[in-house]
């Protein structure tokens, strides 16, 4: 018998046993990290999905007496493929974090700062909500709705309804430091969200800074592993050797921020040598219509030129371009922070990447980037149509309204928010409502702290006492994903529609509530017409969820859906033949006339990154998100903390030698905006002209007993931006430049 994972499972009878016996088990909130009594036969398994990141891998929770004992993957699920990553497996470490926010609180010390004791006083939910509603009304009456800022994802839908009902123009989120550029480019080049990657059927995978293997996004990592197992070639362009490089056939150590040059040169080779997939390109793209412009545009971007910019040999660029185009199944993924957001030229890079996929002829084809086939889940506005929303008035403090293509996405700009609040529109924002974001998420966090201090009244809703919470006037304790019911449509590995219930595996601990609850309660106080149904009753979130499930065809109600566990609607994959890009003939757009019409680039031009090494700052500064942590939210999780407790300044031994820096010695990293101190870690994985720091550490909150004061904030040396900087640089996709930094380092005496 061949020794495969499946056979091992079979041979050991491992699948299926539902009732477990464990010697040591946690008893509850205070007992979680201590060995306790045994797990009895009353343990049950609940099917749900992970809430750490957006693929929402299928998950099974073993629960006894309301306490989660174990989290594991859901067999047969197309996303996690029956497994979880290290973060997902540590989910109980979030739920049972002893530092969790437990009750609403108000500040009694008016002085704000990490060195100030806020003087928290426990208050009731009623007092908290009355206070917030009163403040919102007061500021809107006195200064207009543009004086309110909501820092939250566009979810839950109930919160968005409140924001719309109050005519609040300033809602912003982190999408600019993630995938915003890709979203804009895909809208106009392929006509939608092609972030599904059919790696397992790909023949050739080109990765420009894409590092999802190292980030342990297992839905992607598994795809790359399968691709390699199937014999596909994988080429990784990255200034550091990462787990993704290790998983690749070839690693090219590229000069930071020059991937665009290589991508442009590859288009040059593929177009000038007519190596593109003629059948697809002629039938499904506007290449033919703009052929003269396209050929002429890319003519100057030769491999020899790209070598001078990127340090990648011209011969390698030409070879890889030819191999990619002739492989018959080339794919260049883009989705997520790495590549989409890092440099001032990331919008152009993502456009070039999209063109490479079109030239390979794999858009929505086997082995390519495809559109998710999803279950449509109606939002609250579809279930309960609201009265007309008032027009939103006033300036966007993040300047989004100055970037027309970003404005269309309804996402925000973290990188320009502080500058807008302090410089361009000082004093406009009187009140800020933070939902599940921390200051660490921003480039140049000290400037964001300053911006926060300029706001009169701050509300922070979170599950942990984050840095943002430290600066708040009212704190609302949030339920987390293991305490909430929801319906999740899958869109990462979605060749056919799939939906999963997210189940409240644990009852909410202490007085935690959902953001949807807060929205309804504030709605009752501020804009009742939007939260009242025709019969005069208030919107009930449980009834709303039942209605969503029913209308999406997932079951009669949530309880029935929950009992099913996962609903899949298998259907043959029918490749798209028309693409909603705005092209009158429904084709993919290599040349994007809509960009040109609004002053942007119809075809991507070369732009150098924003910051170049100089005498004062001779080194590139790189950041990364470790695979065992989730952005800046998991560092206080005891399990994950023990695996990776802090960060370091990672530098090449050759560089360290020139500066007489030894392993473990404290160094200071300085850029034009700030400095941080960290112990040096010498490593051969990084170029000698760069320094690298892990993101997510350096929380200041004194209430985070594990993460607080641990490590340094990578963002303190990352310059933020003004919206005018972006406009001047042609950054029409609003790429946030979170790695577009140069620095120097010195040993600390």
């Amino acid at each position, binding site marked *: 018998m061949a020794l495969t994972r499946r056979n091992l499972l079979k041979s050991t009878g491992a699948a299926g046993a539902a009732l477990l016996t464990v010697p040591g088990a946690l008893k509850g909130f205070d007992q979680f990290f201590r060995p306790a009594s045994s797990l009895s036969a009353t343990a049950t398994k609940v099917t749900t999905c992970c809430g750490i990141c957006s693929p929402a891998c299928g998950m099974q929770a073993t629960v006894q007496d309301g306490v989660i004992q174990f989290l594991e993957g859901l067999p047969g699920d197309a996303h996690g493929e029956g497994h979880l990553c290290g973060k997902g*497996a*540590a989910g109980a470490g979030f739920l049972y974090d002893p530092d969790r926010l437990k009750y609403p609180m108000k500040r009694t010390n008016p002085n704000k700062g990490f060195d100030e004791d806020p003087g928290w006083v426990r208050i009731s939910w009623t007092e908290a909500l009355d206070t917030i509603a009163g403040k919102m009304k007061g500021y809107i009456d006195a200064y207009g709705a543009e004086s309110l800022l909501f820092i939250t994802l566009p979810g839950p839908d109930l919160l968005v309804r409140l924001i719309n009902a109050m005519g609040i123009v300033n809602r912003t989120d982190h999408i600019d430091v993630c995938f915003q550029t890709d979203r804009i480019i895909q809208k106009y080049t392929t006509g939608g969200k092609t972030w599904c990657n059919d790696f397992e059927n790909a023949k050739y995978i080109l990765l420009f800074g894409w590092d999802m293997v190292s980030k342990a996004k297992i839905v992607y990592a598994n795809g790359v592993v399968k691709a390699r197992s199937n014999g596909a*070639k994988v080429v990784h362009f990255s200034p550091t050797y990462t787990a993704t490089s290790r998983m690749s056939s070839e690693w090219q150590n590229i000069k930071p921020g020059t991937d665009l040059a290589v991508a442009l040169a590859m288009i040059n080779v593929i177009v000038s040598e007519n190596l593109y997939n003629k059948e697809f390109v002629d039938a499904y793209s506007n290449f033919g219509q703009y052929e003269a412009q396209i050929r002429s545009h890319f003519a100057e971007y030769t491999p020899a030129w790209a070598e001078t910019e990127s340090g990648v040999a011209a011969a390698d660029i030409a070879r890889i371009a030819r191999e990619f185009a002739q492989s018959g199944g080339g794919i260049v993924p883009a989705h997520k922070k790495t590549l989409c957001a890092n440099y001032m030229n990331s919008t152009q890079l993502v456009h070039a990447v999209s063109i490479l996929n079109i030239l390979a002829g794999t858009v929505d084809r086997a082995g390519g980037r495809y559109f998710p086939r999803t279950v449509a889940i109606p939002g609250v506005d579809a279930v309960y149509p609201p009265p007309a929303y008032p027009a939103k008035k006033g300036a966007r403090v993040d300047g989004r309204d100055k970037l027309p293509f970003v404005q269309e996405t309804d996402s925000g700009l973290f990188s320009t928010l502080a500058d807008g609040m302090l410089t361009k529109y000082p004093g406009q924002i009187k009140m800020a409502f933070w939902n599940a974001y921390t200051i660490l998420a921003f480039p140049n966090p000290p400037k964001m702290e300053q911006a926060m201090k300029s706001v009169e009244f701050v509300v922070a809703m979170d599950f942990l006492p984050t840095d943002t919470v430290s600066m708040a006037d009212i704190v609302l304790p949030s339920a987390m994903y293991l305490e909430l019911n929801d319906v999740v449509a899958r869109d990462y590995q979605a060749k056919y529609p799939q939906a999963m219930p997210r189940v409240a595996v644990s009852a909410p601990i202490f007085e935690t509530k959902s953001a949807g609850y807060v929205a309804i309660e504030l709605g009752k106080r501020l804009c009742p017409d939007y939260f009242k149904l025709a019969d005069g009753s208030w919107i009930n979130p449980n009834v709303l969820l039942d209605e969503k499930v029913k209308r999406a065809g997932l079951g009669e109600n949530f309880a029935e859906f929950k009992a099913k566990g996962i609903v899949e609607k298998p259907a043959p994959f029918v490749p798209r033949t028309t693409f909603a890009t705005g092209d009158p003939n429904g084709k993919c757009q290599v040349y994007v006339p809509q960009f040109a019409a609004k002053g942007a680039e119809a075809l991507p031009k070369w732009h150098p990154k924003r910051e170049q090494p100089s005498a004062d700052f001779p080194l590139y500064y790189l950041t990364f998100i470790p695979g065992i942590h989730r952005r800046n939210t998991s560092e206080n999780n005891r399990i994950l903390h023990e695996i990776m407790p802090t960060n370091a300044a990672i530098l090449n031994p*050759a560089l360290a030698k020139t500066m007489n820096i030894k392993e473990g010695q404290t160094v200071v990293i300085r850029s034009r905006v700030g400095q941080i101190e960290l112990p040096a870690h010498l490593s*051969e994985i*990084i170029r000698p002209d760069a320094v690298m720091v892990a993101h997510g550490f350096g929380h200041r909150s004194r209430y985070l007993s594990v993460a607080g004061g641990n490590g340094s904030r990578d963002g303190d040396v990352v310059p933020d931006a003004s919206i005018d900087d972006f406009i001047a640089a042609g950054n029409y996709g609003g790429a946030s430049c979170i790695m577009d930094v140069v620095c120097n380092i010195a040993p600390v005496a």
Partner: protein
Amino acid sequence: METYGWLLDQKRCVECRACESACKQWNHVEIGVGVRYRQVRVYEMGVFPKVSMQALSGSCHHCEGAYCIKVCPVKAISRRPEDGTVQIDQSKCVGCQQCYAFCPYAAPQFNQRTHKMEKCTMCVDRIDAGLQPACATLCPTGALQWGKWSDISEVGSATTGNFANPKQTAPHIRFINDPYPGK
């Protein structure tokens, strides 16, 4: 007696540490006392830009010739009769760390609170319930597998880079060292 072992295909390891998290979760391994039953160790090799890395997920390998059993002065370490897994009896352990000193794989761990040694049990409670150990259950890419030693012992290689000579203790782990197919 049916015995069990590990099979590690390092090229599939994406360093996600699901094995570590799962182990801590299932076994309620105490936090903050310096104990990690399983650990993914990443080794760098070469000099930039000719650099490569190796990720080795390791735990107790429940060796046939386990030094820990031989060197324990109070006979706290023994084999479970049902499957030969190597277990530490917490009631007997005096925390002298001899087992740690002799183990080629640094498997026994000193609990800084209890001042006793702990290590991977191979999740024998899960084995008894018809399940795989937590680490292999969670591993998303199939890099870490577990099964009957009779199925594994002839598969792949007995050793790999950065792994102590298996002739010392006959560990129950094998390695698939083959690279991916193609270029």
